């Protein structure tokens, strides 16, 4: 979580400095979902993400340097400079790809789950999507098909209460999201997405259900993005466009998932101040190293522009 936070903060700075142009949807404040879910997964469990997936990528084992290089448009990036922040991949770690088409990877993850089932593998597929995705028809089609075939698929809805700029209560009837899975007979949970232990425990339970052939499972994680929809503060048109109430942001900062976990660890005497400082130094060093790596990497040459369209 600390690494993701340090990375997102650094990316935010680079966006403000103008060094990063590609749309960067930061997951600051939502780290516990990414880390909690992925900590319950094996390497060969297959994960698909969305536009806000730096955290998912890191939590599933993606390389920090390659991510930074990708976002800076370098050839050494995880997608060789063709994807930017929204198309990231770490296939060898089971992180199968991310796209910004809302709910676009939910059915893809269902396809992953189907092939795992056909091949009788004891692995699961995971789709990360946001609360805004509940407006897309393909989500319900996927819920239906996954339930019909008992696919080993875990739907993770990160409910940060905003569908881009618009409060989710203005997008859908004010009913809990996790209930959308119920009519399909899918075991579904609503949990505190800022409590990493609760997320991890629920994810482990979900994996167990899928392994018994009783999937899919739906988990709604209540959380909040501390940054804007894009970049640190939605400053896309050169001015601050985040329209969320300041008071609301402040209240959620108090429920910061990292702070919450650190306080718990300190209380239980599992972590002291020195160790905390060391972790901070380590992650800062890793992010700095990633930035250096990216800066020192070359851009793809224009001769390569047509490469990789076909395999």
């Amino acid at each position, binding site marked *: 979580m600390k690494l993701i936070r340090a990375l997102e903060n650094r990316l935010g700075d680079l966006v403000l400095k103008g060094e990063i142009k590609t749309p960067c949807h930061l997951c600051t404040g939502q780290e516990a979902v990414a880390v909690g879910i992925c900590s319950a997964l094996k390497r060969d469990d297959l994960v698909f993400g969305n536009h806000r997936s730096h955290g998912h990528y890191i939590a599933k084992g993606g390389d920090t340097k390659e991510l930074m290089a990708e976002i800076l448009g370098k050839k050494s990036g995880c997608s060789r400079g063709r994807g930017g922040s929204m198309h990231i991949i770490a296939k060898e770690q089971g992180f199968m790809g991310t*796209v910004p*088409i809302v709910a676009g990877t939910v059915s893809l993850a269902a396809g*992953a789950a189907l092939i795992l089932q056909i091949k009788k593998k004891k692995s699961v597929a995971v789709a990360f999507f946001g609360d805004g995705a509940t407006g897309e028809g393909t989500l319900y089609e*996927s819920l239906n*098909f996954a339930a019909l075939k008992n696919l080993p698929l875990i739907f993770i809805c990160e409910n940060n209460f905003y569908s881009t700029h618009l409060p989710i209560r203005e997008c859908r009837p004010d009913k809990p999201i996790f209930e959308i899975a119920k009519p399909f007979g899918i075991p579904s949970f609503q949990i505190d997405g800022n409590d990493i232990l609760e997320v991890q425990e629920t994810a482990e339970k979900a994996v167990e259900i899928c392994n018994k052939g009783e999937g899919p499972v739906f988990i709604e994680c209540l959380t909040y993005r501390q940054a804007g929809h894009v970049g640190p503060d939605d400053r896309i048109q050169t001015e601050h466009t985040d329209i969320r109430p300041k008071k609301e942001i402040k209240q959620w900062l108090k429920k910061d998932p990292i702070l919450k976990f650190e306080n718990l660890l300190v209380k239980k005497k599992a972590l002291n101040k020195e160790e905390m400082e060391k972790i901070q130094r380590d992650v800062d060093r890793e992010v700095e190293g990633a930035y250096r790596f990216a800066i020192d990497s070359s851009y793809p040459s224009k001769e390569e522009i047509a490469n990789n*369209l076909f395999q």
Partner: protein
Amino acid sequence: MAINEAITQMMKKDSSVFVLGQGVKSPWYVGNTCKDLIKKFGEKRVIDTPISENAITGVGVGAAICGARPIVIHPRMDFMLYAADPIINQAANWSYMFGGKSSCPVVIWGIINRGAEQGAQHSQALHGLFSHIPGLKVVMPSTPYDAKGLMISAIKDNNPVIFIDDRWLYNDKEIVPKEIYSLPIGKGIVRKEGKDMTVVAISYLVKEALIAISDLEKRNIFPEVIDLRTAKPLDKEIIIESVKKTGRLVICDVGWKTGGLSAEISRIIVENIPGFLKSPVKTVALADIPAPTSPTLEKSYYPAKSAIVDKVMEALK
């Protein structure tokens, strides 16, 4: 049955090949193309699906990304438009947008159901639309031999391939080789050699063109007929070589006239060998209107042999 044989043989050979889509259990939907597949391979690998084109196509695309070689069937390709996102945004872009680190070897099979008073939403030929998209290959067989060979090539291809066939060709019979064989995607074939004119056609209009040509030969006119087999990538060389020889061109496309295959072929000629044309390019294609249902209207909507003969005569003027 040629397609059925292709799928059966490829499913036997490669355990990662599987079939999913609406109507695989029903000859009403897919003719006999999926006959006995369930009996041979079971319902785990031959999946008749709910009517959810978007998610089901996404399932195929996702499975392909994860190592399978799925064939997704759309028994009426009009309904494929619900799946524009998994086909165009996802499958087509997948290799490129991840720098070639992932691939999507999926076959999306759409059947054109023209005619029979089915109207605007049960009959559309959408190859022009899909041909516009970088990252997609679009094949359109006109014979049983080609249907088997191109289906096998599509399954073997490491990229997304849109396989489009026409119900009007489903009663055609031909002995095809028993063994597995593939035809190169992106290569056309000269169906009939000639000297006076190049007639480039695709899908069912190849058949009509060949009938038209036998009429024309009686009038001492000898056109060359090219079957494109693939709408994208287009076999430019075969068209250019033929037009260099004949100096005249009639394009027969099963889709609409504007912004489609005929416009593309015209562009290729104008860009590459404008000086070789002895007369203006002529086009046989659908008028830019939706398919009507009334039998009188429908009859004049779909071009056939006589339209091709007329255009050839015009081009010879």
